[in-house]
């Protein structure tokens, strides 16, 4: 379409095709990278690396995620809680499970501990959970692809 050279404001036709092509490419990319996983991850915890930390098949049964920060505090549902206070929150978890007629021993406690935290804190955390009747524990690590 030839451009009009007459009087008045001239309109310029911009060819939109490449932009739309690119935009659709972008949409496709973002649609495919969209994931609905509800995995709890938190930047305040830097997990230790492990070559064998392959993701498990299927979600855990009744997961309770406890994240231990390097300073010894525990992130429970997004809020940092001291190790002494976590027992009260776990008591609530236990009560909720019992009221839903589930045994606390069937719950899986996912321990996401920072690599710089101390083993003693991790063991204390596990001990508190055991006192509340939780028996299944998994230690979470980040998959190390460098090997």
């Amino acid at each position, binding site marked *: *379409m030839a451009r009009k050279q007459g009087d008045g404001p001239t*309109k310029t*036709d911009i060819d*939109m095709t490449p*932009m*739309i092509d690119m*935009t*659709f490419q*972008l*949409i496709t990319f*973002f*649609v495919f*990278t*969209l*994931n609905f*996983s509800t*995995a709890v*991850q938190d930047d305040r915890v830097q*997990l*230790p*690396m*492990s*070559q*064998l*930390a*392959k*993701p*498990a098949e299927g979600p*855990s049964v009744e997961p309770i995620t406890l994240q*231990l920060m390097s300073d010894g505090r525990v992130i429970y549902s997004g809020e940092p809680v001291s190790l002494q206070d976590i027992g009260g929150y776990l008591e609530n978890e236990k009560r909720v499970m019992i009221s839903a007629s589930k045994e606390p021993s069937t719950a899986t406690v*996912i321990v996401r*501990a*920072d*690599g*710089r*935290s*101390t*083993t*003693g*804190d*991790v*063991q*204390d955390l*596990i*001990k508190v959970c*055991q006192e509340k*009747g939780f*028996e*299944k*524990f*998994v*230690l*979470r*690590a*980040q*998959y190390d*692809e460098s*090997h």
Partner: protein
Amino acid sequence: MAAKREGLSDKIAIDMTPMIDVVFQLITFFMLTLKTVITEGDFDIRMPLGASAGAASEDPLPPVRVRMTAGPDGERTSLTMNGQPLGDFEELRRRIIDLVGTGPGSNADKTEVELDCDPTLTYDNVIAAVTAVSGMVQPDGTVVELIKKIKFAPPKKN
């Protein structure tokens, strides 16, 4: 812009504006919901209640005791397996393979590892030890599974 009436090869200008608007909305939505999920995996540990009540008695083989001591800054100062000092976690893995073997006839299912760590030891070392005893990644990327039953020794009071 009015469509030209003369000639057969007329081009109809479609107004692209609403489509581009919607497409940009979509892009914005998907960009903001983008989450980069780091691959994570779990290690099971056996921590039954009343560990002193002989919970591991069904294992015919005695547990492998892995002991790690810590220095003042939490760094690992020694690593021993059943009392024998080891250099690094690679050596621990070799000893475990020597002990239980791989493939059919392996004793890996019947063996349990008990981790006995100083309370001040950094947790990185625990995961490294658990990684060393629980499997081996071969050069072709396949994983040979070793001992899956791992527990912590009761923490010592100091």
